[in-house]
């Protein structure tokens, strides 16, 4: 092959791209603030979820805008991954799209766990009388009666 043919051959060769890096860029990407990164990630993930559901429903921006009673330009802002949604807006989007954006399951489970925990009552020896609240009234009972009543048994700590 002559030089021209070699040049044409080299041009047609399928070469893998050069992976470029530099200390300057390495330093920037290696020192990302994790808290800020997580915030950005969640903002973009939220927008992406809304966009994916729109696509699954076959909705264009104008359809979603109509359903939300907003201008299409507002939807563009929402989908950019830069928007800071209000709580009210997220609740409304959940309703219109039929999806969950506010995941409260962890808190609900915690609440259930907290409710299932036995109540700790501290009985002071110098205060043998307990007041039990039942509805809007209080009943005074002796601590002894309280402890003996099975339906009212609780974990007791003595101070």
């Amino acid at each position, binding site marked *: 092959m002559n030089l021209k043919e070699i040049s044409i051959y080299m041009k047609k060769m399928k070469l893998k791209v050069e992976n470029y890096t530099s200390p300057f*860029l*390495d330093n920037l990407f290696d020192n*990302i603030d994790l808290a800020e*990164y997580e915030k950005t990630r969640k903002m*973009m*993930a939220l*927008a992406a979820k809304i966009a994916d559901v729109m696509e699954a429903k076959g909705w264009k921006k104008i359809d979603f805008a109509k359903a939300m009673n907003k201008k299409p330009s507002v939807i*563009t802002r929402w989908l950019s991954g*830069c928007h800071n949604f209000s709580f009210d807006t997220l609740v409304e989007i959940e309703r219109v799209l039929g999806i969950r954006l506010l995941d409260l399951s962890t808190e609900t489970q915690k609440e259930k766990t907290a409710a299932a925990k036995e109540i700790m009552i501290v009985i002071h020896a110098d205060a043998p009388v307990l007041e039990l609240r039942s509805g809007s009234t209080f009943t005074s009972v002796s601590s002894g009666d309280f402890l003996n009543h099975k339906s009212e048994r609780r974990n007791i700590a003595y101070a």
Partner: protein
Amino acid sequence: MKYRIVRLSKASGKKASFYTIFDVLAQNTFFERFIQENLTLHEGEIHEIINRLKVISEDEGARTYNFKFDQGKPGDGVCYLKYREKGQSLRLYCIWYGADLIILGGGGAKAEDLKAFQESPKLKQENYLLRKISELVTEKLRSGDLELNHEFEGNFNLYEEDETES
């Protein structure tokens, strides 16, 4: 004009690859030059851009809503990255080839009182340069000199018509 397409290994991830243009004569890349030119006065925004690029490359891919299009000629893919809803002063020009491949170019700050980027000599220069890059890449894709299949493959050199490769 002698350029080469290179892949930014630190910016790229499992969902998208970011490429940029290596200026053979200046021995620098368009993206690195953009960062160096704007890091001092816009440090916070530069870090926001870096975060956003990593989320795109690692988690979400390059969705069209993350970019502002129609910054070049019709259909050439020239756009800029959105990273703030309000108070975004930097424009990082890019060429969008799909959810998994973007070429990052240069850019600069756009003053609030400017109505069009052409009013800024810097933005105009960077934008028009990337339009030219887009033309050259499109030509190479058409001729088969370069192929696009989730990543670029082929001949990554970009030269003007009257220049020869050395």
